């Protein structure tokens, strides 16, 4: 793919404070418009890796997001820039939804970007429309179903209009129609996408390339069927 790299990671290592080596020299790239599936067993470092792409964790090695280097010494301005470019949808939607109403929650990100309250609310409404949650503007997030929370969490990220979407286990808590809707929605989005998932059929519907993590390293990379067969990653 000749498109520019929006994520470029080289030799990334990260050790948690308790001494656990979570990432051990990861090399990875994601090009503009590309959709990549990230597979791996539980505890293989997938989520830890995703947190590095947004600057929530900073390890050793090189991480560049849309050309901006992310290191321990990154400036607050660059960090804010990276967070505006990488939209991270968390595995547990309850982590992401914390404001009293859906509208306020989805507008939280755009407002943090410095938009006026009116602009932030307008963006939030568009994002909620995209995810089919426009009817829930004034509902309390903690009263939504799991699937609805998932959609609102995604809307919260889309409202920031990022260049890269990182979705950590996006199909968790979604019923089959919800998964179909999510696939249809993601297909319409032009952003580069990294799907951290165990769901091979979901990944197959969207991703053109797959990466397999094993004990904090990239154990394999290639076409999706090839990776699934090579690592016996199907039911």
């Amino acid at each position: 793919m000749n498109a520019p790299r929006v994520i470029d990671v080289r030799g990334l290592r990260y050790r948690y404070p308790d001494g656990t080596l979570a990432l051990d020299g990861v090399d990875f790239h994601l090009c503009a418009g590309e959709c990549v599936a990230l597979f791996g067993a539980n505890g293989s470092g997938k989520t830890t890796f995703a947190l590095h792409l947004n600057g929530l964790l900073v390890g050793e090695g090189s991480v560049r997001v849309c050309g901006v280097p992310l290191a321990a010494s990154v400036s607050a301005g660059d960090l804010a820039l990276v967070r505006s470019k990488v939209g991270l949808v968390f595995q547990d939607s309850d982590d992401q939804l914390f404001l009293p109403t859906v509208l306020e929650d989805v507008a939280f990100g755009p407002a943090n970007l410095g938009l006026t309250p009116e602009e932030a609310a307008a963006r939030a409404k568009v994002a909620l429309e995209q995810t089919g949650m426009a009817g829930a503007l004034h509902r309390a997030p903690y009263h939504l179903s799991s699937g609805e929370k998932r959609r609102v969490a995604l809307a919260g990220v889309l409202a920031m209009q990022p260049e890269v979407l990182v979705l950590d286990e996006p199909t968790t808590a979604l019923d089959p129609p919800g998964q179909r809707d999510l696939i249809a929605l993601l297909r319409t989005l032009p952003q580069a996408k990294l799907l951290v998932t165990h769901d091979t059929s979901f990944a197959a519907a969207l991703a053109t390339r797959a990466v397999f993590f094993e004990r904090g390293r990239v154990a394999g990379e290639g076409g999706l069927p090839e990776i699934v067969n090579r690592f016996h990653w199907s039911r």
Partner: protein
Amino acid sequence: MRSAARETWIVERWSRGSSPLHSLDARAKLAALAVYLLAIASTSAWTQAAVAGYAVILSAALAASRLPVPALLARAALILPFSATFALITWLSGDATRALALVEKSFLSGLAVLVVIAATPLTDLARALEAFRVPRSLVLVIQFLYRYLFVVADQAHRMRMAAACRQGIRRNARPRFHAAAGAVGVLFARSWERADGIYRAMAARGFHGTFPALAPTRFRTVDGVFLCGFALAALAVRLML
């Protein structure tokens, strides 16, 4: 814990209502509340006429809030067991008038605070506190505490359900006490993890220490009129009755 969250949610729902009091600027409401509380606290010659005067002022605010009065009164009465304890001691020491004043003052003050909280969304209250130069770190702590209350309550509810499913028919209190004590520790650890997750999710969406507001604040003439009217009425009761 669950009931604390339920109560908080009820007040949260009330605060999202629409009424003349809801529509006022949070700064005006907080400033009026401060004057009212100071007036009550500093009224030394506490007479039943003064009680009536302060009650009339508060009733006007209550009417303007369109909040459910019996429910508000019931919640404001939660303060009475505490103030009644001190009132009882005062009464036993021979000062029945002061004892009665203690109960009445605390109830009126508690109700006034509740009316303002129930008629103002927390985000607006926080911004008003910041406008009054309350340290930002303190305002943030209040906001996080408020948000995490739901998180901890939800966690506690799930754990209680899981425990109930496996509780069986054992009636002995001691093992149950041990299990409950252990569960509190687990609840703390899980809540800590959840709070950490929430903070990460906030940081991922650009949070930099200030909760943004969706509605711009404007201190309008009506806010000034309310503040002056409410404060002057409280001061009039303080000085004249």
